[in-house]
């Protein structure tokens, strides 16, 4: 069997606003649009993924929060309605998705072997979190690939951002090993924003773009610093600075997704493709991709 490999790693933010703005038939809410900079960037990345041959998407989400270890989806299909607990006015999405249980179990086992506390999630009534659904929908609106969701263990809160770097890196290495052994071609997705301070009020028309801006300039400057390092291929440095970034901007990197993904990819020193940056209700969001293939890697923006 040929060795499996990670064919791309995507940083894919999941404000439900982006799905809401696109009006897919699965979502019950209706919008007049909004947040095009991010959505058009997502569209372009989704087109790129169409040209990549892959078997499954593995996504790490901060909206499946587990305190006792890292959990993996462990049933072949989930079908239900996801309603965002914070923005239910925007996101009530009917989903029907397939899970690559074999790959999920391999990653679970590899993580357990590496000493990480793990659990397979096999309750059929479980609702898949809206982070998974938003990022996967925007990267693959056809939903024609199986996914695996990995939960976010709450290391940052329980211990510190530094412990999160250690734990998520170990998990990334274990997942990479399992992917290699699986013989599968896999797209990794870290589902989260960068700076993460929200406005606590919403415009009467949430998609009114005259009201949208970053929460404050400090958040913006930090986000730009991180993106600049991504562009320069300094992924190890991004992780080194991450504890401070997370604390200063209450960034959603606290969930560990980007650390996990970059560790799984061996902390790439090639440039990340940048597809767009925009604020959503004050938070900072970038769509980015690490393409390990020198032939297909692009300078997008």
């Amino acid at each position: 069997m040929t060795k499996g490999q990670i064919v791309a790693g995507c940083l894919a933010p999941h404000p439900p606003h982006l799905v809401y703005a696109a009006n897919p038939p699965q979502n019950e809410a209706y919008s007049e649009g909004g947040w095009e900079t991010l959505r058009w960037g997502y569209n372009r990345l989704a087109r790129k993924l169409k040209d990549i041959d892959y078997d499954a998407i593995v996504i790490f989400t901060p909206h499946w929060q587990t305190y006792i270890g890292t959990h993996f989806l462990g049933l072949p299909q989930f079908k239900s309605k996801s309603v965002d607990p914070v923005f239910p006015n925007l996101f009530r999405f009917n989903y029907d998705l397939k899970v690559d249980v074999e790959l999920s179990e391999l990653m679970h086992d590899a993580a357990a072997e590496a000493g990480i506390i793990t659990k397979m999630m096999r309750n059929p009534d479980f609702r898949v979190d809206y982070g998974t659904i938003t990022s996967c929908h925007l990267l693959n609106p056809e939903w024609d690939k199986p996914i695996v969701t990995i939960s976010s263990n709450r290391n940052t809160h329980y211990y510190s951002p530094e412990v999160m770097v250690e734990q998520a890196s170990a998990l990334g290495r274990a997942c990479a090993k399992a992917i290699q052994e699986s013989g599968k071609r896999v797209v990794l997705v870290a589902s989260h924003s960068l700076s993460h301070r929200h406005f606590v009020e919403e415009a009467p028309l949430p998609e009114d773009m005259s009201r949208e801006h970053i929460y404050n300039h400090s958040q913006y400057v930090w986000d730009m610093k991180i993106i600049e390092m991504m562009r320069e291929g300094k992924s190890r440095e991004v992780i080194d600075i991450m504890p401070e970034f997370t604390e200063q901007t209450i960034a959603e990197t606290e969930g560990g997704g980007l650390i996990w993904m970059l560790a799984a990819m061996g902390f790439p020193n090639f440039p990340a493709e940048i597809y767009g940056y925009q604020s959503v209700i004050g938070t900072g969001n970038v769509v980015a991709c690490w393409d390990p293939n020198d032939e297909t890697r692009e300078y997008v923006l």
Partner: protein
Amino acid sequence: MTNEPEILFGIYCPPHPHPLLSPDANEGYAKLRAGFDECRRRIEESEADLILVYSTTWPSIIGHQIQALENAVWTHVDDDFHYLGSMPYEFKIDTEFAHAFKEANEKRGLESRTVEYEGFPIDTGSVVALSLLNPENRIPSCIVSSNMYANRSETIVLGKAVRDTLATQGKKAVIVVVASLSNRMFTEHIDPADDRIHSRKDDDWNQKILEFFADGRLEDLSQLSRDIHGQIRVQKVVAYKPAWFMAASMGQHNNYDGEVLAYEALNGSGGAVITLTPSSGSVGDKEFDEDDVEYYQGDRNVLDKGMLE
């Protein structure tokens, strides 16, 4: 502002699903369950028109959200404890209260909104509390979120808006606050037989808090909230808010009959079922340091002050 509302009693109870889904897995879970059952009996025997739940496991961002779907039906599964089973629920919500509560919040300067959507994910803490305390939906209920950015002033004002609403509608209420005491859990899966409070320090603090509750010193606990947050709360949110909400909604004083029905570990966290009933006579007032607040004026933008012109 309005007449005094009638709060029959308050309940402080834990959010984790063990007392609902696996009460017999250890003696402690069974004791917590018995505590819930006792509260259920007391609610049934009371003349309550409404059960209002403030849940620390329902975080919100856009102000405080209030459940307003008349018939909230779903099957809930906990993120961590999914292997203990599913929690099907059907709750009868007092929509009239929900909408009036939202307006009362706004009158006091708070951002607030009702949520009225089929399939809205009601949080584990609320599902556990309402399933055990009001299984037959004998009494209409309502649930309010805990804003993740809110601190003391918003939470105190939120509690006062509850009083405004109850007084205006002339409803007798039971206030239910869903929260752990110490909230640090073991980060590995444990045999329920081995469950205990995560650390001696957490247990010491929990015992102290329980003494205050047993003495009916709710306002003292409210005043101690910042210390409690620093000592025994994992820093997930900006503050420990349950005692603020409970005091502000039930009355900011120490004149309560307190009863600790159970105190046990839930995967390491401190779970307690406690009741507080308004009474006469005050025990051990301390000197209150925290300012009282009637209206929320918004964030104080300290960065805008003292800038060089």
